[in-house]
């Protein structure tokens, strides 16, 4: 049965984030005061931090997953710029291990965390170390096809080295349409890649500019608001059983055949989508 391989040091997992860095990401996220690119970077940095903490043990960080964070945009000439969105020492590495992630953040920011004592109601200020790997960026267009093509190449190489691993999970976050063609064939090519444990999973998240109600994990294309949503639906993988069960256990009302897709997502929805899409793999719970 696919998608059952337990994630371990021998059979590492792979998470690939494809971040839209087009100019439209400068707009505020629906229901938030902050820009979409800022919120997205916060979400990704938090995810990386949590994963690093989760992987940490007595002897440092357990090397049980590889992570790639790609950004895509175009320059002023319309040429696609595809590359790692990681900053600092890891900027030139397309895929890095979680151990490298933990050891090499671009910087560690000191932030104040406010915690309220539930019994007394008193609020405490606790200094918190927040590592940063990804900085916000918004420029040019949305070369989605180029991005998917690069992801295909990267994962082909990774899969050749990890034939028995849990299949890579690709999380694509965008706020607009592809500007370099129909992305669906590229997405299909990407999801045709497979390890012995199943095909590559592609989850798509659309960020909202307006506070319109969003939705997640639709089971059928009926009622999708526009062509962009239709495209994203077709590009997205059907949630495998472990993911489906995990979402059900988390209280999400899913139907069989639900796809890994979110539309008009706000910040809460984005974090929930990230967790659902990445924490259901065996060994990460």
């Amino acid at each position, binding site marked *: 049965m696919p998608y059952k391989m*337990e994630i*371990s040091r021998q*059979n590492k997992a792979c998470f690939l984030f494809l971040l839209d860095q087009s100019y439209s990401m400068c707009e505020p996220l629906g229901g938030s005061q902050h820009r979409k690119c800022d919120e997205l970077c916060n979400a990704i940095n938090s995810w990386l931090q949590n994963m690093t*903490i989760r992987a*940490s*043990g007595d002897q440092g960080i357990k090397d049980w997953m590889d992570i790639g964070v790609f950004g895509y945009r175009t320059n002023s000439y319309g040429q696609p710029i595809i590359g790692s969105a990681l900053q600092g020492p890891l900027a030139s590495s397309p895929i890095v291990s979680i151990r490298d992630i*933990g050891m090499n953040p671009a910087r560690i920011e000191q932030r104040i965390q406010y915690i309220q004592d539930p019994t007394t109601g008193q609020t405490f200020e606790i200094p918190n170390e927040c590592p940063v790997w990804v900085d916000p960026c918004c420029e040019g267009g949305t070369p989605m096809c180029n991005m998917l093509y690069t992801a295909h190449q990267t994962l082909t190489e990774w899969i050749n080295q990890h034939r028995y691993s849990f299949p890579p999970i690709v999380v694509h976050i965008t706020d607009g349409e592809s500007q370099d063609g129909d992305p669906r064939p590229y997405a299909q090519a990407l999801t045709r890649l497979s390890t012995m444990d199943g095909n590559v999973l592609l989850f798509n998240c659309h960020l909202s500019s307006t506070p319109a109600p969003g939705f997640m994990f639709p089971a059928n294309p009926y009622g999708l608001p526009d062509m962009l949503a239709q495209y994203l639906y077709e590009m997205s993988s059907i949630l495998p059983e472990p993911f489906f069960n995990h979402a059900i256990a988390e209280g999400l009302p899913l139907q069989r055949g639900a796809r890994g897709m979110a539309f008009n997502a706000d910040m809460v929805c984005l974090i929930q989508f990230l967790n659902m899409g990445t924490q259901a793999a065996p060994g990460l719970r």
Partner: protein
Amino acid sequence: MFVFKGFSHPKDPQNGTNEDAWRADDLQNVVVVSDGASSSLFSSSWSNILCQSVIENVPDPMDHFNFPKWLERVREKWLNGIDLNNLSWYQKPKMASGAFATLVWATIEQSMETPDDLDDDTPLDTDFFRVYGYALGDACLMHFHNGRLVRSIPVVRSADFDSTPALMGSVNLGVDLTASFVPIDFVVPEGDWIILATDAMSQWILSQCENGSVPDWRSFWNQTPEQYDELVERIRQEQQIRIDDSTVVLCCVGSDVYLDREFNVETSTPTIRQEDNRFSFTQEYKPEPPAQPAPLGKTVSVSSVFLDFPDAAPTPPVPPRPIPPVPQPEPEPEPSTAKTGFHQTTEIPPLPTDELGIDSDFGIPNSKLPNSKPKSDSAAFRMPSSGASRPAAKPTAPRPTSKPAGSKPTASRPASRPAAPKRIQPSQEQRIEPPKPGEEEYKVAQPQPGSEPKMSAYMAELERRKVAEIEQEEQRKREQESKFGYQFQKGMSEGIKDMKEGFSDMLSGPVGEQAKEAVKKGKEKVTKFFGRLFKKGKENE
């Protein structure tokens, strides 16, 4: 009380970190296994400290006064081993919640109790042992008897393992764990296997049992740590077991004599516990000659059951007391009735009383009393041994003094009983009457084979006795009838008979009908009265 042997294989052999821990101590008679949660920080040290603390002072989670103090001391010990100043940014957030581990421990002690489900063919001299302790989380204690799984605590089936077991935390998060402890308490006969294992191994063992292929623990015992590593790696590749730290501790319970014979441990070294590179708790038990120290995550084991140690652990080791040679028990008539006969599968017919050789009032046959055991001190209670002084009360048949050669057998008993079989059938016991001293008639009646005149005289004598008996009976009746009581009784019975006849004539008339009606009404009244009385009495109750 038990011999033990432990195996542990880390999740990642290259990395070498093993968050499982186990300890066993045959002085305290305690065995403990713990599985540190990979997701928590310093869980390896936490599981090790937990195991060591259980060995040093076996806790009682139901003791609401002392258990929190015990736990606080263990937590303090864990925290003292951590350099908080050198923690990385990714370690600091985890320190708030601390480390987590599952835990299972058991104390194994000799018991006077017997198991509820004791086999019928259990030898009389079997020793029994009480296994008691607690389990928290999904580290399991399994009991195997006669090659089958009897019980598994706390997880019963392989499908019941989930990813969220109850855990003991190294930081007090205000969680009351009392309800999460599952008590262990049962009695086993010697020779049974008590297996403690962490979750991955427990799940594999249970799935093996569910598939009908119960592990042969004796073979498991005999394997080397390297063979265990190979086994775990192989079943990991076959996806029979989850990739996780895999630890199993085998304990075979039994008396010293039993374990000595079965495991040949008289030359073994003193108890060695698992050692950890960073937490060397067991240095005080350095054996002589020194045992091979096991690398981290490898198996260290083995066992000793007889050796006495001084009470204070840190004192230098004292050379083990020489063990007197233990005499081997007498061989049983059949292989299936050997000392391991508790596991026998063939049915043994019940031995006749003669063969059991019951010598004492306790009903324990001498042949089954192990002379070497301490409990065989009960030999002081023994009656004189069998043989010449066997009691005369044993039912024996009167034997003719001689039997003529060539004479044909008669209906009476043969001249001499064959030596075997000695079994006395109940029918025989009823048939054979022991001679009563002084009974001349019996002697006279004793027929001699082949003598016809004596036979006719015998018949005549029988006839004479019969007539005499009849005459005696008549004389007795006459004497009885002449007594006053008999006369009175006879007169009364005749009078009652006459009265009955008279009443019968009267009741058949019209007066009789009125009388019957009155009696009937009176009877109803009485019935009602007693009914009310009964009801009232019930209410008062």
